């Protein structure tokens, strides 16, 4: 066991291991990213996750925008501002209008159109005149618009108006109109085959007129052609960007892993170390305790407990720690017993050196490297356990977790719909987050507890 290693030689040997160094680099990157996330994405942003209304302007369930490089035509969201409102206000009322030109060169329609008027005062009516490249126009009116509201194609009056338009064109009856059909109406050529036609590419224009009471004033409003792709990781069916979820989930995963591991490893090692050190009845009692906890089925226990108490990061970490420490206690006890058999321990006693002092001089330095190695390995296990629990719906509320995202993906049939980005990125993150710990942990383990190779 003693090969005469000092801290420095441990470090040197660790650096010789390629996987260990790679792991260490990844670990530093991971921690740096987590720190950045913790600072840059404040809780308020995270809370928005649970509030679907925030994301209405985002395309829902769309792939990452880089798919455009791979030949998929999936335009990103294009936003246009309506400025330069012309019009006037008089004693009888006010009316303003503004126009914006929109160039559309895609073979697919946007996934939605969002109009957000911004004004002060009372408005009676809002009219949109939509001009297609072939010159045909579509007109939609809304009554009593509210400033700041995002009006999308699912807004009933708009939906109905476009439905009317389609019926006029196709000369047939439609009971319901889907957003896809609404978009077809807006982008395809007029005619009876409007719903089956192809998207016209060219210049469109949108003219918005707001009529209201005296004192109405209109400020910058916007028209968004919500795209078919978004960001680096796409969105879920609520329009929430997966990249936000992935980043925001990192600190939580790491915190859970580190806290639970530190407590279970250090606690376990001390418990086992003392049991081995004392011997006698103390050892018997402590070992019995270790085995009892070891026998508890961890996952079932956590699931059961989650029904009785509200889980937070801290208590979930504590519960996981409370179930994981026995393994480390057993190893630590064995190591301690083998140290105790060494003559230098007896020599200490013969010199009247106190047991405590002996523990710190001879036992602790030998247990520390093992502790560090085990902590690293344990973290990866806890991360995966935490995400598994979240996936099962067990975990603290108001926290974004990758498991939680995967849970939502299953609920909303992401695989069935072919929304691969929804499951891929959170899934990869779970691996990416635990990998560095595994690499570092195994490298440390090899340095700290070299196995005897068969001759």
């Amino acid at each position, binding site marked *: 066991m003693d090969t005469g290693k*000092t801290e420095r030689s441990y470090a040197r040997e660790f650096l010789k291991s390629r996987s260990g160094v790679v792991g260490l680099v990844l670990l530093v990157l991971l921690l740096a990213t987590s720190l950045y996330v913790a600072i840059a994405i404040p809780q308020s942003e995270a809370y928005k996750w649970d509030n679907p209304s925030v994301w209405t302007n985002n395309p829902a369930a769309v792939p990452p925008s880089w798919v455009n490089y791979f030949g998929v035509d999936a335009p990103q969201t294009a936003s246009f501002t309506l400025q330069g409102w012309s019009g006037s206000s008089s004693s009888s009322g006010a009316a303003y209008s503004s126009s914006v030109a929109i160039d559309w060169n895609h073979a697919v329609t946007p996934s939605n159109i969002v109009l957000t008027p911004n004004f002060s005062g009372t408005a009676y009516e809002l009219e949109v005149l939509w001009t297609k490249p072939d010159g045909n126009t579509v007109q939609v009116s809304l009554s009593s618009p509210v400033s700041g509201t995002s009006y999308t194609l699912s807004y009933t009056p708009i939906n109905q108006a476009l439905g009317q338009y389609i019926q006029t064109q196709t000369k047939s009856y439609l009971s319901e109109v889907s957003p896809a059909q609404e978009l077809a109406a807006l982008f395809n050529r007029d005619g009876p085959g409007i719903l089956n036609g192809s998207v016209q590419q060219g210049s469109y224009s949108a003219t918005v007129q707001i009529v209201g009471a005296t004192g109405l004033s209109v400020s910058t409003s916007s028209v968004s052609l919500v795209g078919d792709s978004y960001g680096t990781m796409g969105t879920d069916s609520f329009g929430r960007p997966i990249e936000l979820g992935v980043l925001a989930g990192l600190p939580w995963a790491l915190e859970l892993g580190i806290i639970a591991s530190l407590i279970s490893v250090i606690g376990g090692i001390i418990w086992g170390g003392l049991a081995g050190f004392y011997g006698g009845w103390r050892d018997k009692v402590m070992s019995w305790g270790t085995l009892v906890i070891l026998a508890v089925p961890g996952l079932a226990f956590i699931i059961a407990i989650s029904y009785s108490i509200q889980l937070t990061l801290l208590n979930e970490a504590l519960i996981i720690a409370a179930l994981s420490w026995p393994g480390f206690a057993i190893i630590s006890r064995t190591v301690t017993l083998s140290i105790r058999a060494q003559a230098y321990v*007896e020599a200490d006693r*013969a010199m*009247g050196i106190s047991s405590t002092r002996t523990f710190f001089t001879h036992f602790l330095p030998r247990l520390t490297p093992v502790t560090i190695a085990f902590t690293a390995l344990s973290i990866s296990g806890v991360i995966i356990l935490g995400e598994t629990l979240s996936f099962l719906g067990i975990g603290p509320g108001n926290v974004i977790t990758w498991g939680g995202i995967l849970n939502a993906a299953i609920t909303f049939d992401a695989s069935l719909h072919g929304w691969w980005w929804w499951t891929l990125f959170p899934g990869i993150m779970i691996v990416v987050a635990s990998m560095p710990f595994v690499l570092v942990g195994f490298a440390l383990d090899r340095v700290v507890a070299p196995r005897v190779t068969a001759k």
Partner: protein
Amino acid sequence: MEKTLPAGSTEAQTDGVLRIDDLRVFFTKGGFLDKVTVVKAVDGVSLRVRRGEILALVGESGSGKTTLGKAAIGLTRPTSGAVYLTDDGEENVGTAKGGQWKRMRKKLQIIFQDPFSSIDPNMRVYDALRIPLMAQGIKSKEEIHAKIEDVMKRVGLRSQIVNNYVFQLSGGQRQRIGIARVLLFDPVLVVADEPVSMLDASLKGDILHIIGNESKANKVAFLFITHDMAVAKVVADRIAVMYLGKIAEIGPAESVILEPLHPYTKAMLQASPVIDPSVKDEIIKVNIIGELAQSTSHPTGCKFHPRCPYAMDVCKQKEPLLQEVKPGHFVACWLY
């Protein structure tokens, strides 16, 4: 079991530092579901150690020599009988507890057999020496430094070595540190448990010289445990031959080696190799029956009789007591 001679009659009363009175140390093996066996490691030993003398305990494995050594300094408790530290008044070593036991550590020390495991290899030499000093209550840096310098010189090592880690030292150097560590206490009696048996021949001499020197110059008494008669001859003032927990013969080293009395001693001396190429084709005759005795066997009468070529009826029935056959030279045998 008859008592051995009453305490005091085996040894002269001159300046003794340790007195062992009819000491017995028994260990029980097994128990609960296994058959209980009793190992009588030490079974009725009385002797005295004088200040500054080197008394060798010679015997094979199972003779009880190591147990006797550890009991002599209080690392093992007696089952019956007593050990007294007589350096300054009289203190019972076997029953000492707590603070008293700890104070005795200053006077009673031990050097271990294996220099590779008796000193923690992962420490700096300086710490390996500093920590025992601090356990004695010496805290001042100057005093610690001075004492360490002193013992390093006494064991013949350069003081710069204290900056090295123990694992960087050779076996011989480590054993010297083991001795240095013990000398820090200014002990009155040191048990040396086979201190050279794990060292190469070229290193033995130096260790034995250090021990010899400490004994003569600094009046440190040594209980020198060994299985090797030749080593005992080289270093000891007196030799005690042990067999199955009892002393078979004890006397001045020269007398025991050149004029052995006990058949067991004679057999051991016959078996000890010397540099003698002329016997290479001869079968060396050793006057003894069989090989090692089991430490769990308890023959009646004289413990040696099953292996003794001269065993008589009385040997099987009664245990012989130590008798002075020559000046200072005692033997426990019915032949005398």
